[in-house]
């Protein structure tokens, strides 16, 4: 437990009849941290977010934001929150500007100079009716709406869906800027590359259970790498397999391909005692692979 946590989730559980959408979820997110919430469709990401927003009430457990209970003090909390729901829907008959004015009025006013600046950064058109916009352009209105009150906590469900790569990059820059100013960001995604680029830590949720929480750097160092080795003579698979941390060895003549999880030096020492190494190629594993590995393991285990 972290008393400094901006978002503190404790034993959060939500059942829909027999379906266990979220099971005993514990999580702390600190100030200025960007937390990426990863998981396949239907894993419980949106349920968690909706419970944080007091849209739904947990079956068990509780959560607090900025030290305030998410149910008891939900109105108070929402003064400090920027929220972007998944599957964003807005009032189709209102223009972007009308929409933002409506929400600004509910908040008792916001800084329009800031809104215009945001709109310019992500090239949002505020003059058209929301219903006439493409989903990406509609998403931009949603993003501005979430950022416009300079929130201390940003909660976003699949924020970059529909955005083109240039806008995604700008959005990620915006996230890093507000995080730099102390804003905590909780974002769900299955766009792993996005999380990899912006998040400090990631949580992986699967079938309602938080399977792992790791820093992005930590995950990467744990990563299993694929390594290709070229030798001047034919090699024996058994030699390579005997090295601790080496798996999935395939040998073809002078070339070997291995998966290795450990210090490069240890592996090379053993190999170079026996053979003359001509060339070595290594691929850095990205989160995508780690992520898939997690699911495969969990999947076979379940």
């Amino acid at each position: 437990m972290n008393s400094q946590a901006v978002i503190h989730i404790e034993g959060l559980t939500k059942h829909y009849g027999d379906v266990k959408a979220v099971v005993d979820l514990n999580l702390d997110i600190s100030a200025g941290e960007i937390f990426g919430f990863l998981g396949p469709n239907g894993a419980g990401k949106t349920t968690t977010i909706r419970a944080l927003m007091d849209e739904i009430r947990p079956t068990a457990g509780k959560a607090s934001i900025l030290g305030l209970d998410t149910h008891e003090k939900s109105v108070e909390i929402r003064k400090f929150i920027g929220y972007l729901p998944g599957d964003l829907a807005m009032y189709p008959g209102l223009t972007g500007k009308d929409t933002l004015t409506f929400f600004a009025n509910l908040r008792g006013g916001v800084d329009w100079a800031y809104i215009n600046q945001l709109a310019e950064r992500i090239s949002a058109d505020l003059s058209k009716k929301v219903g006439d916009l493409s989903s990406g352009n509609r998403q931009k209105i949603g993003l501005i709406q979430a950022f416009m009150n300079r929130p201390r906590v940003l909660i976003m469900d699949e924020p970059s869906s529909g955005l083109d790569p240039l806008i995604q990059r700008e959005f990620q820059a915006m996230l890093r800027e507000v995080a730099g100013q102390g804003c905590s960001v909780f974002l769900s995604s299955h766009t792993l590359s996005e999380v990899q680029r912006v998040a400090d830590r990631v949580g992986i949720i699967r079938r309602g259970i938080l399977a792992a929480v790791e820093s992005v750097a930590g995950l990467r160092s744990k990563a299993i790498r694929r390594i290709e080795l070229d030798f001047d003579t034919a090699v024996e698979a058994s030699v390579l397999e005997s090295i601790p941390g080496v798996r999935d060895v395939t040998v073809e003549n002078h070339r070997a391909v291995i998966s290795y999880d450990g210090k490069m030096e240890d592996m090379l020492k053993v190999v170079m005692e026996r053979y003359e190494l001509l060339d070595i190629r290594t691929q850095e594993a990205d989160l995508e692979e780690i992520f898939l590995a997690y699911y495969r393991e969990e999947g076979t285990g379940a």
Partner: protein
Amino acid sequence: MMLSSIFTKSVRDHWRGMAIAFVAMMAMLLFAMSIYRNLDVNIYQGMPEALKAIMGIPEGANAGSLAVSVFLSGAGAWVLAGLTVAWGSSSIASEESNGTIGLLLGNPRSRTNMLVSKAGSMTLLMLLMIAASWVTTYLIATMLGVSLDSLKVEALSLHLLAIALFHGFLALALSAWTGNRGTAAGITTGVMIVSIFAVGLLPLIEGWENMAKIFPWYYLNAGEPLFNGINWAHIAILAGGSLLSGALGVAGINRRDLKGQNVGVTLLDRMRTYPLTRKIISRLAGSGRVSGIWVKTFSEHQTLLTITGYVMVLTGILIGVIYEFMPIETMKQLLENFPEAEVIFAAIGGGDFSTPAGFFQLEVFGLMAPAALLVVGIAVGGRALSGEESRNTMGLLLANPVPRYRIIIEKSLAMLICTFVTGAATFAGVAAGNLLGGLDVSYANLAAVCLLVTLLGTVFGALALAIDSAIGNGRAAAFGAIGVALASYLASSFLPLSPNLAGLAKWTPYYYYLGSDPINTGLNWVHAAVLAGLALGLIMVSIALFQRRDLRHSG
């Protein structure tokens, strides 16, 4: 086969509405037959022709024929035509507004093929529904021991099918032509209402009797199919009209661009871009309407309010002006000779036909005004929360520092304003009719009835809101409130006919609307307070219910 897959989907989309309409119709019939069974219907036999014609009482009336003719060819026909209007107007336009038409036409099928399949499904569904009603009518009669021997229910059923399909095809053609569901349903409903009024009132005016023939509704009952059998000429006219609409629909859907999932351009939008009107219109349609939740909710119902307001003003004026042409002296004499007839009038909306006040009560306040107020109240109240929830905007709305009770209060305020605007339009109509027709009905009393009907609409709007607050399902909220309204209307109209049960009527909200005879005696403050208190109580219940539950989320 496109027809079979579209038919299957239509059944899936519409079975609930069909089932509810069917149960409502058959319940009304059951109720009416059991009431009429206990009445002495012989009084009808002695009535002069003119009175029977005005009241729509057929020759040789007995309990069965009265119930069938009043409820099947009256309310039943409205329900059935209302259903086909809803199906017809949504068939093409809602595929467009849902954005599914591209998917549908992504299959190797032509637009004509799609439209014909939609029309075919509508015809089949209505045929099934009417066949079921026909069978059930006999079942009910047998159960109650009422004889239907001399009646040709199957002939009336065919006429019902023809009139329902006529309006359904008209709505379908308009929907195909404009791609706008509201326009299609609005125009068709307008045609239907004008037609029902014209066919009911024109024959009473000397020299204008034949004018009724230009209105489609005339061909439903003019030949009295229940007694005389099928009038093939009339069926042919209605079927011809349906085919013409169908052909126009095919032409319409093939000539225009299909609409995407957008919102269309309203007149206000056009005026907003035009330099001369821009300033004033942006005040109306622009930032003003997003200044808060209740203002925005109110502005979303502008179309509904404009249409109902317009209909109520016109109805009031029409009824006021037309009174002069009614055969009042004859009516008075008839009523003097047959005091029992008053009981029957009470059952069809109350009011003594022979005085201007009674005429207003019968034609405006009996059915039209409560229907308009209920539609407005329930439309606003029943969608207050589920409207936002089904569009997935509730999460966004509640991401702002706004407590849930404030949502209920602001939505209730919007509902209250909507019902009061409609009530004011009703008053404006009858007051203008009263003035133009030179009828000396007290304006204070007219205002009193309008206030009471407004409160009645608010009560049922608040009931819909309460159901919506409990479960977040707009359809269930609307049907629930309509069901209670219908039961309460029937109970308050028919229970007084039986001396033993008359006291029970006090338990229905309707009793507090017309029970004190406000058009003759003025406002009964206690009754007004009962209605206002009921509405307020339901709003408080809504707050408690909404506070407790999870928000719904679609998709």
